[in-house]
């Protein structure tokens, strides 16, 4: 278990170009389908808690998954695994980066990488919404309210430039009023 935990989050740390949100599909695939550590709904809750907390979302997910699977040791191991690859690369990149920054092949690879990161994050949003029960064939009033909260939150983030923390807090209060 601990070895799987470390190996998985090391891999996540290694390929997390475009950072946290783009890594949600990868973590989800490994946890739900490969290791079968939890159900989709439980994973969605971990992502929700990770999104509520400051700090990089991939690291937060690693800490929560590690803690859930193996306590403090698991949390520390998963966090170490996720930062280790970039830490090593940063030490190497201090020199290499300036040599390869303008290399046309590297730039071309990043042109493609950045584009698929958009796809990964968009997929993460849809798949999260599905696991949160927001996409169903027979929506009831709860689902409609969730969709309204989704649209309202997006509006507050994009056009009102509200801080994510404020939006989450307000959303929680609205939830208590609506569903409580």
């Amino acid at each position: 278990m601990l070895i799987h935990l470390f190996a998985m989050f090391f891999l996540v740390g290694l390929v997390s170009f475009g950072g946290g949100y783009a890594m949600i599909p990868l973590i989800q695939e490994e946890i739900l389908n490969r290791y079968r550590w939890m159900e989709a709904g439980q994973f969605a809750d971990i992502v929700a808690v990770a999104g509520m907390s400051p700090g990089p979302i991939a690291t937060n997910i690693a800490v929560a998954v590690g803690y859930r699977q193996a306590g403090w040791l698991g949390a520390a191991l998963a966090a170490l695994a996720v930062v280790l690859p970039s830490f090593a690369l940063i030490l190497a990149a201090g020199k290499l980066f300036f040599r390869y920054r303008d290399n046309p092949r590297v730039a071309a690879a990043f042109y493609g990488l950045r584009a698929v990161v958009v796809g990964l994050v968009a997929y993460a949003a849809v798949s999260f919404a599905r696991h949160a029960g927001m996409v169903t064939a027979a929506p009831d009033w709860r689902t409609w309210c969730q969709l309204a909260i989704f649209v309202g939150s997006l509006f507050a983030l994009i056009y009102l430039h509200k801080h994510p923390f404020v939006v989450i807090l307000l959303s929680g209060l609205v939830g208590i009023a609506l569903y409580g």
Partner: protein
Amino acid sequence: MTDKRKLHLSLFLVFLKMSPLTFGGGYALIPAIEREVVEKKSWLRREEVADLFAVSGTVPGAVAANSAAFIGYRIAGVSGAIAALLGICLPTFVLMIVLSVFYVQFKDNPKIEAAFTAIRATVAALIAFAAIKVARSSIVDFASGALATGAALLLFTGIHPLWVIALGAAAGMLWVHFRALRGKETKIKDKEPVYDYMI
């Protein structure tokens, strides 16, 4: 305490202080780095901050952790990098565990469950917002738009995300190469890099 020790402690504390700012995005981190690292400590020159974020954004991993490691390394070598990284990670690590414990304790409480039903919708919006921000800087032409759409569709077929990442890099190189063969130049640099979605 030796000078080296003092420097490590000071690196640790500066990034410890900045850690809570990494909430949901790095817009807040750039001015904080300019204030703490450039103005107060004079560890970096102002023009180096752009390089710092370019490196941190290029290397995989969270920009906040990467920039801490980079600055720590520049100031005091590998041990400095470790001190800075610990500083930036520790508060969020502890907070995340506290939240996990809290969540496990209270998830069956009807009020918390009600709040979470709404918060899940907001987290979906947060992820969608991240997608929009990345799209704004990464979709620079028709081809990159098509690549992003293709990637999302491929993911829905159940393909492993690692393949999508590898295909993206390969497709980028091939596309730019073929256009160059036909004598066309591809605009591959984004207008303004977005840092905060990576944090």
